[in-house]
């Protein structure tokens, strides 16, 4: 069977299924609460699946397995950091946020701070983080489709990026949170089944002996035992070791500051359901990241080095789909064609679910925080108008993401996502933690920590080797890199926390301190928290 025909068929099936779900969900989306939070009527289990679908992105499925396939053990840090990070969300954030907020990340700050400054700041950082994250997904979609069509054509990659952008705008505009959630649930199930299938087939090639798989990967990598040890990618110099530490910090502290994850906690009726969702999500995400280990080392063991190593002209983002083809019987075989098409369709569904979540988070924040909370603060805004603005914002954000993705295609997608995590950990996490646990925290502290963390993280990336100075940079022919690290977290996260502290102790905001009493009671007990819609 012809791979292209089969792949095209499966891709269209994924698109048709998600479009159908979206239309169905749109008929149940009437109020603003439906659009933003799906009426808060999802169960803990459903939301746990949706969180998995929102979180396990192209960076996880394509990026991590690619990083392990090329750099061996060092790629595994992503899996570990991405999972351990969920403990921050579980223990410190999920339940209290559910009780304290309504629709967006900014709500819990606006609860006791001056509305305009904190909503503006939180909305800007929501949009910046989401766009960084969107870039990674869309770049992944471009390379995936080009691989399947068997042509390394820039035009096809660009068309794919535009198509994915158009679809994500459609999901959000038409389906709102309900549509997005169901797309994410379907994707989570497909991703787990697809990955498990490849993992079993890979392990079967090695008689289910992990050690044998690792040994073959090490031999085939040309690096020997060093491939299985830490340090291949990051161990060369002190600078790269500090970069590794910086990445590790950004991963573990970023998750609980990602706006598209945070708004998922609003989709359940109670804080206990928010906790249950995170527990399900941890189980699902943990199982998936264990599988990335087999996918990555499997690709290293079974694929030709030149297929995945960028130094030999390969594309590391394609390790998983190529591995599927290899275990199905290889290039040209029917089994290989079927599995390649299947895994590519799973990856495509993965990307669509994540970009929908990101677009929803950022457009919600533009409508609810910037439009209703800041621009029209002193006027009544009808729910209908607010949701209309959210839909328009989804268009604009989608267009910006498309425009920025096209030049970003040279970068590894796990790495791009790590930058989004660094920005989230620096700009968003400090104010969330301070707000929930520190009565004295106030408006100046919140805005300083958000803007400070944001400017530090983005500024350091602009001055880093990611942008210029190296052959792998976005602008390889120029060199203005004065900051040596690829990941800014180790500097920008402390800056976010420190500025939040300094801003707070240099100003007083008695109303914010007073309102902390209500915030704390509400966050811990649920007294007065938003209720689920009655349908």
């Amino acid at each position, binding site marked *: 069977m012809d791979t292209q025909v089969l792949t095209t068929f499966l891709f269209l099936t994924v698109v048709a299924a998600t479009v159908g779900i979206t239309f169905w969900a749109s008929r149940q989306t009437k109020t603003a609460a439906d659009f933003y939070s799906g009426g808060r009527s999802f169960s803990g289990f459903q939301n746990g699946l949706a969180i998995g679908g929102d979180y396990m992105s192209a960076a996880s499925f394509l990026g991590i397995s690619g990083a392990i396939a090329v750099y061996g*053990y*060092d790629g*595994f*840090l992503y899996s*570990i950091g991405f*999972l*351990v990070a*969920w*403990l921050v969300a*579980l*223990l*410190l954030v999920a339940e209290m946020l559910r009780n304290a907020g309504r629709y967006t990340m900014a709500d819990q700050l606006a*609860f*006791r*701070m*001056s*509305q*305009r400054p904190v909503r503006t700041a939180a909305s800007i950082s929501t949009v910046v983080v989401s766009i960084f994250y969107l870039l990674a997904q869309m770049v992944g979609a471009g390379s995936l489709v080009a691989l399947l069509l068997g042509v390394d054509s820039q035009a096809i990659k660009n068309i794919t990026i535009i198509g994915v952008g158009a679809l994500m705008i459609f999901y959000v505009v038409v389906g709102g949170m309900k549509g997005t959630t169901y797309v994410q649930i379907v994707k989570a199930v497909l991703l787990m089944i697809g990955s498990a299938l490849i993992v079993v087939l890979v392990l079967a090639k090695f008689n289910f*002996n*992990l*050690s*044998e798989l*690792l*040994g073959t990967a*090490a031999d085939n990598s040309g690096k020997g*035992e060093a491939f*299985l*040890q*830490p*340090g291949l990618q990051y*161990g060369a110099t002190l600078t790269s*070791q500090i970069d*590794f*530490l910086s990445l*590790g910090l950004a991963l*573990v502290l970023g998750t609980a500051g990602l706006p598209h994850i945070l708004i998922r906690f609003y989709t359940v009726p109670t804080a*206990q359901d928010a*906790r249950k969702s*995170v*527990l399900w999500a*941890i*189980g699902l995400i*943990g199982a998936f990241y*264990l599988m990335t280990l087999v996918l990555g080392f499997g690709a290293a063991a079974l694929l030709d080095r030149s297929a995945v190593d960028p130094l030999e002209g390969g594309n590391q983002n394609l390790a998983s789909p190529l591995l599927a083809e290899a275990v199905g019987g290889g290039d040209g075989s029917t089994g290989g064609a079927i599995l390649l098409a299947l895994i590519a369709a799973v990856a495509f569904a993965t990307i669509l679910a994540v970009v929908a979540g990101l677009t929803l988070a950022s457009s919600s924040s533009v409508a609810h925080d910037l439009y209703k909370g800041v621009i029209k*603060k002193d006027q009544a805004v009808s729910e209908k108008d607010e949701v209309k603005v959210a839909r328009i914002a989804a268009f604009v954000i989608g267009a910006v993401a498309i425009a920025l993705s096209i030049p970003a295609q040279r970068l590894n997608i796990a790495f791009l996502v790590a930058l989004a995590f660094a920005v989230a950990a620096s700009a968003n996490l400090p104010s969330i933690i301070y707000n929930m646990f520190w009565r004295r925290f106030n*408006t100046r502290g919140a805005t300083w920590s958000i803007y400070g963390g944001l400017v530090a993280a983005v500024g350091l990336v602009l001055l880093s080797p990611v942008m210029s100075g190296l052959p792998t940079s976005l602008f390889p022919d120029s060199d203005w890199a004065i900051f040596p690290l690829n990941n800014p977290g180790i500097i920008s996260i402390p800056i976010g926390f420190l500025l939040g502290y300094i801003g707070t102790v240099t*100003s007083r*905001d008695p*109303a*914010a301190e007073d*309102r902390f*009493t*209500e915030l*704390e*009671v509400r966050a*811990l*007990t*649920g*007294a*007065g928290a938003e209720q689920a819609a009655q349908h």
Partner: protein
Amino acid sequence: MTEQEQAERHDPIYDRLHASPEFTELRRRYRGFVFPATAAFLVWYLLYVILSNWAGGFMSTRIVGHINVALVFGLLQFVTTFGLAWMYARFSAQKLDPLARQLDAEYRAGGDA
């Protein structure tokens, strides 16, 4: 700051609930679990990152076949994450939820009065 944009002064029932011994106990239990637990998993995770960076020899020690300390250490991070999540689920269901429900019920009763 001259302009106060915050919402109106809150319902006094929150002050009463906040001052109640049940709430103090709920907050004490919650913080008593999550603060040490957060410190513990962050230290454990950073230990892993630091050992990967600066204790390559130790991490590269082979245990059986091609399976080395680094891999086992990484897999242990999964085990501790699952374990801590499970412990928190049990703790909160037994020690936190009953108190939170009681306070929420008082709030609802007070709100209706």
